[in-house]
């Protein structure tokens, strides 16, 4: 197995056909090269979400590469106002993902940062502005990529349960993710989708906000949990692990029976096993 300059794992990494950038048909002879932006939370807390993303992208006909030179999009530094640190992290991400047709992540929040914040950061930096723009233009949240770029209409998965979907803020408002996950979920055998009240209202995560302003954050997540409960769903789905860890953490504290999963896990048919924050089975 060869490693490219950026330390990629994939054998099939191929960067000769730049014109494929605009080619959205999965039927093109050369498969679309997708760089998976794992996100730090999927990497550290719930790797299954990233494996699910890989499976979905491969099923859609993409060649998936996971650059090793990635950690985090830099939001903790960005949202703390540390511009210099964020810029340096961003430069690393821009370099690591320069060669792919598309960059996809199972997160609206991280892709929102790549797509909107990076170009903003470098708007006065001639050297980096173009590269940041190029990265931004090819960065997609997973479900939107599957539906709008790969034109996937049906996934091969089943799930026995009633699910409700939490629209994470960055996914909804920065990446226009709303219909796409719902459309894909409708194709999952056995799954019933029910909407909760205020599905589009923030869960109170906000990164470091949740630790810096715990009183307000807990109030917001408690409201969210109440809405989940009154929806009657037995499973909460979402597209961002930050929100899901927050909501799952509060549901566990409330001893709620609701299972929490990332939408990719369900769509990839990987929903078996404990949900987020649930104990491993003894077997």
């Amino acid at each position: 197995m060869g490693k490219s300059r950026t330390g990629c794992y994939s054998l099939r990494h191929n960067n000769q056909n730049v014109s494929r950038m605009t080619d959205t048909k999965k039927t093109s002879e050369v498969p679309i090269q997708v760089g998976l932006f794992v996100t730090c939370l999927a990497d550290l807390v719930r790797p299954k979400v990233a494996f699910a993303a890989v499976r979905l992208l491969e099923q859609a006909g993409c060649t998936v590469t996971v650059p090793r030179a990635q950690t985090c999009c830099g939001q903790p530094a960005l949202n703390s106002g540390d511009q210099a640190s964020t810029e340096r992290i961003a430069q690393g991400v821009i370099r690591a993902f320069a060669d792919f047709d598309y960059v996809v992540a199972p997160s609206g929040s991280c892709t929102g940062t790549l797509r909107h914040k990076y170009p903003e950061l470098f708007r006065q930096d001639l050297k980096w502005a173009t590269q940041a723009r190029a990265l931004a233009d090819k960065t997609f949240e997973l479900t939107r990529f599957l539906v709008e770029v790969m034109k996937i209409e049906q996934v091969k998965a089943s799930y026995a349960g009633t699910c409700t979907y939490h629209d994470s803020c960055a996914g909804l408002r920065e990446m226009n993710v709303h219909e796409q996950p719902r459309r894909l979920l409708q194709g999952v055998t056995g799954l019933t989708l029910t909407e909760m009240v205020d599905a589009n209202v923030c869960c109170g995560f906000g990164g470091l906000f949740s630790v810096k302003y715990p009183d307000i954050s807990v109030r917001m997540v408690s409201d969210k949990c109440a809405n989940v409960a009154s929806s009657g769903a037995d499973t909460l789905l979402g597209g961002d692990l930050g929100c899901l860890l927050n909501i799952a953490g509060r549901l566990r504290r409330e001893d709620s029976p609701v299972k929490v999963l990332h939408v990719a896990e369900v769509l990839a048919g990987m929903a078996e096993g404990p949900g987020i924050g649930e104990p491993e089975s003894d077997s």
Partner: protein
Amino acid sequence: MSAAGANPTIPFQDRARRALQDQTLQQAMNKAQGGFVDKRREAMAQLPEFDDIRDAARDIKDHVLSNLDSYLELYEQKVQENGGQVHWARTTEEACQIITAICREAGAELVAKGKSMVSEEMGLTGALETAGLKVVETDLGEYIVQLAGETPSHIIAPAVHKTREQITELFHKHHAKLGYSERVTQREAIVNEARNVLREVFITADVGITGANFLVAETGANVIVTNEGNGDLTSCLPRVQIAVAGIERVIPSLDDLSTLLRVLARSATGQEITAYTTMYAGPRHKDDGEGPAEYHVVLLDNGRSAMLGGAYRPMLRCIRCGACMNHCPVYLAIGGHAYGWVYPGPMGSVLTPLLTSFEQAVDLPNACTLNGRCKAVCPVRIPLSDLLLEHRFEQHRRGLTSAVGRLLIRAWAWLARRPRLYHSVMVIPLWLMHRLGRKAGALRWLPLAGGWTGSRDFPVPAGQSFHAQWRATQKRR
């Protein structure tokens, strides 16, 4: 028990905590929650071109901000032609001095006051009272807040934090001596009692002070929009009329006014237009049967001109509709007083550090999840959440955030830029957290994360990172 309005001497965290524990406040906020949001949504649904009008509204305000000096001069000239006077105030102190002097000159004793957030910014009522004048708020919400000895908690619904039961008691306490001995509990009876009490004020007041939603440069008119009509009685009946406004209220023409009015009420209350939209252009003329004898406009800068040349300039587009706070989950949780100054919610969190001081309002831009709902609903497309992030950059540059916090972030960022090291450093903590928590599935306590684990569990990480697992699968392939 409610705090007596916004109190900047108490730290933000304490104000927020108190608000969250204040059952009456929570009850009032819960009731208000949703009403504004639903009404705005319905109003938008009936106007498919709403987003295009928002663009036009933004463009009008941007055009004004690029030509602010010319429009202000034109406006002043028109007011003078109409027989009125324009006064320029650099600071809130200057504004209060000017207005106090006008009242003294007029030999005034009683001042009727319409709803005006810029007058709150000036601390005008306090200044006039210190000068020996009696000031009565005539907007129902403002009147309630005044009786309670508080400040407004919302820019268009000043008493949104009050329950009806509280209002009943307030009226009973203050109106019994005026002969209203029965407690009024029904909405209509409450409004009628206030109307009767305030009627006396309208008739006897010497000076009427209102704000201005817009100042129209081509005609010299100040425009106020209300639903109670109190603004009109406050403006027309007293002998001296004073309008107070920030310098950014000016707009070029009546055409522009109609565009802005189309987004204002819809964004604020979901109305197509408010019950009253009135233009005032000067004092009573020779042949007029009625109207004020004197007409003054006091224009306040107080830091606004300094915002023109910088990153916060879009904030000067604000038309004070309140949609950002109506949609802000933080505002809806803690109410307006917790913000500590005149302007609450997202627009307040952007404005307060600029109009008071960065040092005084460090928490406000941070007490936000950057969920972007405010930005999404703003009728003049102010990127509010981006401006809050800009404030965080500013705080970082000025060293206003905690030194330890900055150091931790820098250390984390240093590590995050070294993927190899980062991935190997994470191995042991991940393994350890997994060992400790896998039976329960979630940890009830984590070092340095008490803010999280105080009321939430932390879902247990898998024992190995994705990158480690991925490498293993790739080797097997």
